[in-house]
Every structure is written in structure tokens, then in C-alpha cells.
């Protein structure tokens, strides 16, 4: 952690500040690559070889008053910009996260946290195209994680002023003044054994509300989302189950009910296997219920991880078409730095 005497503004503003400035230290680069070979039954796929290339720039420092600051600038594959987040740690108060639209804030961080050895049941290359809870995380978000809570309880409250279309607004700019979604808030709670006394058990829940303007012709009210779930680790096993619900606040599809569960087993220090399931029930239009079932295995070998996933998806995208039933196998070699 770097101790600062003054915080410079040159890097932020591009101007010549009257106050001399020093840097908080160097940005470090972390990231990795993930090579995959993907085969899909009954599909023409062309090139089955894919290479991921995510990386992020990270920095941290400390102010004179003891507050901590941390910066993260994230890029996704092919150098595409993802998001920027800044975390300010205030002793006695908690952490304040300013996020430009990363998907890991608010209730979205709990959209599917059932146990897995690699990816979510529908996240290893073949998606079931399930509508999942997102809260206000699509917009720029301020999230507070207070310290003044009982031991073993983690609470987070997130707020966004505009839950759509304003996630990548630069400094000195505004955005997202169109669209149906308005302000939104998310609340999540996670409890470990330090609170409830049962070792290995984690329970969690969350809720979110996003204002929706009536200028959308299909709008009938605000969007509301809920989630609850539990994970339990004993020996080499970890099991988990969760339910989530979204009341869309629009005509047509009025509600989604999602269920996810998974189990993993650590065979040894290097090898783990897992099974995951996710499904979604739609209300309002009588659409089919998509689901995904995935068996996966992961093997770590020094600096690399080999993964294999066998994925089966039915009714992809809430469709009844025969082409919406898909199967895929993905082999992956991942390197992380």
C-alpha cells in the first residue's frame, strides 16, 4: 500500500494543477488467456478455436487521513473496454465502490453463485439465453459495504441514477437520458458461520428495484427483483441452491422465475468435478422454459488449468423450436496472471 502526501490531479484532468502532485504508485497489470475448442452437435460452427485475452489495470494507495483508494480499469477480449471502478475505504464506515457498469455490483453479483468448477451451467460457451437478475448494475453504480454490521454478515447497498444506457459515461460527461429505466437500488446480504454458527454454510439474499418511466409503451410499473440461496461446503463437497425472481414491469412477459443448483467435488488438490443446472420459467406469454445442464471437470497443473464441460441446453431463448435444443462440449486451457 502506498502512502500519499498529496493526490495529484494531472492524471485525472489532463491539466497543469497548481498543487504539485505525486503518483499513488504504478498500475499493475493482471489478466490471462483462455484457449477453448468448442464442438456443437448438429451445428455448423466454422472455426472452433477461441482465445480469450482479458486484462485489467489495478492500482491502490492511501490518503493522509487513512482512507484507502483502489482503482481498476478492466478490458475484455480483444482489448475491448469493459469498465472502470474506484473503491474508497473509509475506516469505521466501510467501502464505497464507484462502478461504471461492471456486472459484479448489486444483486447481479448473486445472479448465479451456485458451486461450479469452472463456469455457470450456461456460461461455458453454450448459453440458454436465460433472463437473469441484474438490478441497476447496467448503469453507473455507487455501492456501499458498511462495516457497522454483525460479524459474519456482509451487506451491500447499491444505487444508480440511471439503470440503462449510462454505464460508460466519461468524466465530465452525462449519459443515459433516454430509455425506460430510471434510478434503481439494490440490497444484498450474505451470512457466514460467524453469524449463524453453522460451519461451511453460506446463506444469501437480495432485492432490487428499478424505476421505469411510463414513456415506454409497454411499461406497467417498476422492475423488481429478488434472490435467495444457500451454499454448504463439507469435506470435498460443496452444494448450492438458489431461486430468483423478476417482475418485469412491462406487458408481454411479466415475470421470470429462475432456479439454479450445483454440486462440486474436489477429488484431490488438483482435480475437481461438478454438475450445475439452471432453468427459467416465464409468465405472461406462455413461452417454453429454457434450461441448461452442465457436467464439468477442472485440473490444475502448475500455472495452467485444463477444463472440460459437457453442456446440454433445452428451449434456448424460451423457444420451442427444435433448433433450440443444443449440446456442446468445450475443452479449455486457462492461464492467469
Amino acid at each position, binding site marked *: 500500500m502506498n502512502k500519499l502526501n498529496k493526490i495529484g490531479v494531472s492524471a485525472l484532468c489532463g491539466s497543469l494543477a497548481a498543487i504539485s502532485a505525486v503518483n499513488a504508485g504504478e498500475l499493475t497489470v*493482471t489478466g490471462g488467456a483462455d484457449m477453448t475448442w468448442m464442438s456443437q452437435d448438429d451445428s455448423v*460452427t466454422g472455426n472452433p*478455436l477461441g482465445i480469450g485475452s482479458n486484462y485489467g489495470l489495478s492500482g491502490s494507495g492511501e490518503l493522509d487521513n487513512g482512507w484507502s483508494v483502489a482503482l481498476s480499469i478492466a478490458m475484455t477480449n480483444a482489448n475491448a473496454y469493459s469498465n472502470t471502478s474506484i473503491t474508497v475505504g473509509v475506516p469505521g464506515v466501510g467501502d464505497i465502490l464507484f462502478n461504471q457498469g461492471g*456486472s459484479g455490483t448489486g444483486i447481479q453479483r448473486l445472479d448465479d453463485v451456485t458451486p461450479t468448477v469452472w463456469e455457470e451451467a450456461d456460461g*461455458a460457451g453454450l448459453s440458454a439465453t436465460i433472463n437473469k437478475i441484474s438490478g441497476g448494475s447496467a448503469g453507473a453504480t455507487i455501492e456501499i459495504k458498511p462495516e457497522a454490521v454483525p460479524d459474519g454478515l456482509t451487506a451491500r447497498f447499491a444505487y444508480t441514477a440511471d439503470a440503462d444506457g449510462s454505464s460508460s459515461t466519461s468524466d465530465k460527461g452525462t449519459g443515459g437520458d433516454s430509455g425506460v429505466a430510471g434510478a434503481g437500488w439494490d440490497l444484498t446480504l450474505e451470512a457466514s458461520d460467524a453469524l449463524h454458527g453453522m460451519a461451511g454454510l453460506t446463506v444469501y439474499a437480495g432485492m432490487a428495484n428499478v424505476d421505469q418511466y411510463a414513456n415506454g409503451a409497454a411499461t406497467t410499473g417498476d422492475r423488481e427483483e429478488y434472490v435467495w440461496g444457500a451454499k454448504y461446503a463439507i469435506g470435498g463437497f460443496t452444494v448450492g441452491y438458489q431461486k430468483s425472481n423478476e417482475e418485469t414491469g412491462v406487458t408481454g412477459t411479466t415475470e421470470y422465475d429462475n432456479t439454479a443448483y450445483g454440486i462440486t467435488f474436489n477429488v484431490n488438490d488438483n482435480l475437481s468435478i461438478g454438475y450445475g443446472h439452471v432453468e427459467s420459467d416465464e409468465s405472461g406469454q406462455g413461452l417454453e422454459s429454457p434450461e441448461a445442464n452442465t457436467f464439468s471437470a477442472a485440473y490444475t497443473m*502448475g500455472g*495452467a488449468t485444463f477444463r472440460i464441460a459437457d453442456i446440454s441446453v433445452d428451449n434456448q431463448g424460451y423457444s420451442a423450436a427444435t433448433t433450440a435444443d443444443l449440446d456442446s462440449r468445450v475443452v479449455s486451457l486457462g492461464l492467469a496472471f
Partner: protein
Amino acid sequence: MNKLTKVGCSALCGSLAAIASANAGTLSVTGGADMTWISNGTAVTGNPLGMGSNYTLNGAGELDNGWAFSLAIANGNLRAYSATVINLDMGMLGSINFNSGNSGNGIAAIDDKMPTAWEETWGAGVSTGVRLPLGSGSSQNIQWKSPAYGDNGTYIALTHAHDYGSADINDKATGSTEGDSADSSTDIVLNINPSLGTEILSGLNIFGGASQIKANAVGATRDDIYEGVAGVTYDIGPLSLGAQWSADYTGIDAEHKGHASNVYNLYKAVAYGVAFNVNDDLSVSYGRWTARKAGKTSTTTSTTNAEIDVTSAQIAYTMGGASIRIADTDAEDVSWSDGNNQSATTISLGLAF
């Protein structure tokens, strides 16, 4: 080099892995800037000042069995994504290279190995339009490269692209379709340093490669494409000499696929170069690249627009972390356009980090 017992995938996957994980360390950044001033003879050029801004993220690690791996995520000028390359060195089993298509594998890696003080003859300020052998290198490919034989760098490399023309596909995804004109491609490259145990031949390097790009039965508008490269370089003291030949058959054959009767279907090129290190800091070079259309699908005998001739004289001076380079390049019949002659004098200041 970082030794790991476990590697996490949290940054890649966003999932909660059942097995605890650790990173191989941090990525390092290398790169630089290259400032150039180009004078294009009598041509109107507008702003002659250019600036390059490439950088690459690099990482390396080692598996439990001692195999080494490395990662490079390369970006070109203006932060434009270039390619991702992962290399797994398996010791005596050779190496496996996963490449998203940066033209660094297969015969693209030997498209021009002529000695030069700075850039290739066709790459120092004039856009010449010469055809270069690409093979599998510009597509997402996997390459196996044998371990170097002895101390002289002799090796063989096999490169395969499952879908020629498809590049930069993300993980857990597939790319392109089978409906285009090309299917898979395969390259073989052989590099030999036949010193024969003699000192005078220790600087001799012979290289060659071939590529086959299969035509797709779905898009059957042509035959298979064949490309080939062969050449030799020789270093003796401060002097480096080289010559190479390349050719590609485009697969367009009027007799078989009904193309227009006056389409060229064969291109050939010959190149040579000489470079001389005056001292540790100063080097000079001269190179020539001549490309010609060498085949037709009919008896049309026109010889216009059939040859591109490029010459470039270069000088480079290194000064600590900076290099100053000057290239004087002349090109005739640029882009196969008869009488389209261009010249350029390029001054460069390069900084590498």
C-alpha cells in the same frame, strides 16, 4: 518465472471455482513509440508526421512438470487490438503455439527474412501492394514446433488453421461459417543451419515452407490455394546476405471453375538483401523485392501491370534506448498499376521500453 501450484480462473470466468486458486504473477508491459517523417517525392502527403504506439502485455509461468508457458496480448497503434499468442514449451516434445492470427506462425513467419537495417523493403513508407505468402498465419491457428536440433537452430514447424480466414475468436465461442470459399489450411516450415561443423558455415541459414489452403466445397468458387517460400541467408562477420523466392497459386482456374478468362492465377516474387554493421551502433542495408504475375487462365498475352519492383536503402543508428533510422524507398508499378511509380524518404525515431 513464477512457480505455481494452482491457477485461478476468476479473472477469466467470473465463477467461484471449487479449488482455491492463485495467479502466475502480474503481466508486464513492453512497447514503444516510433515517430516518423515521410517525404513522398512529388506526391501531396498532407501531414508527414506519424507516430506509432504499440504495446504488448507479457506473462510467463511454469507447470509442475517443468513445461514453460508464456502469454502475449499485443496491441497496435491507437490501442487497436492485434493478437493474443500463448506458447507452451514442452521441452524435448517441442512447443505448441496458440495464435489468434498475427501472421507470426506458418509460412507467414518467413514471408521476408532478408537482412535489413530497419524494415522490410516493402514496409518502410511506401504501400507497394506486393503479395506476401500468408498461409495459416493470418488465421486463428495452432502450431507445433520441434525442439531446436543441436545448437544451430534447425527445426520444423507444422501449422494448422481449422477455418482459414477466421481470426480473433473469443474463448468459449466459434467463428465464421462453412459457407465461405476457404476451408482449413496447413503449413509446414523447415529451417536448417547446415554448418557441417565448420566455422565458415556457422552463419548459413536455409529455410523453406509451403501452405495448402483447401477450397470449401460449399463455396466452391476455386481450387485449393498453394503458397511456397524458400530462401537462404548468410552471416559472416558484420555482413549479412540473403535471397528468397516465393509463389502462390490462387486457385482460380477458368478451366475448372468458370472464372473470367483473363484472370491471373499465379504470383511469384524474388527478393534479396544485404546488411552491414559498421559498428555496434550503426548499420546500413539495401534490399530489393520484385513481384510479378506469372500465370493466366487464358492465352491473353498482355504484359502490362504485371510487375512491382521495390528497392530500399536504409541506415539505422542506435543510441541507448533510442534508434534513428532513415529509409529511401523506390517502387515501380505500385499495386500492379502500370506507371504508378512512387518514392519515399522516411526518417524515424524509435523508442523501445
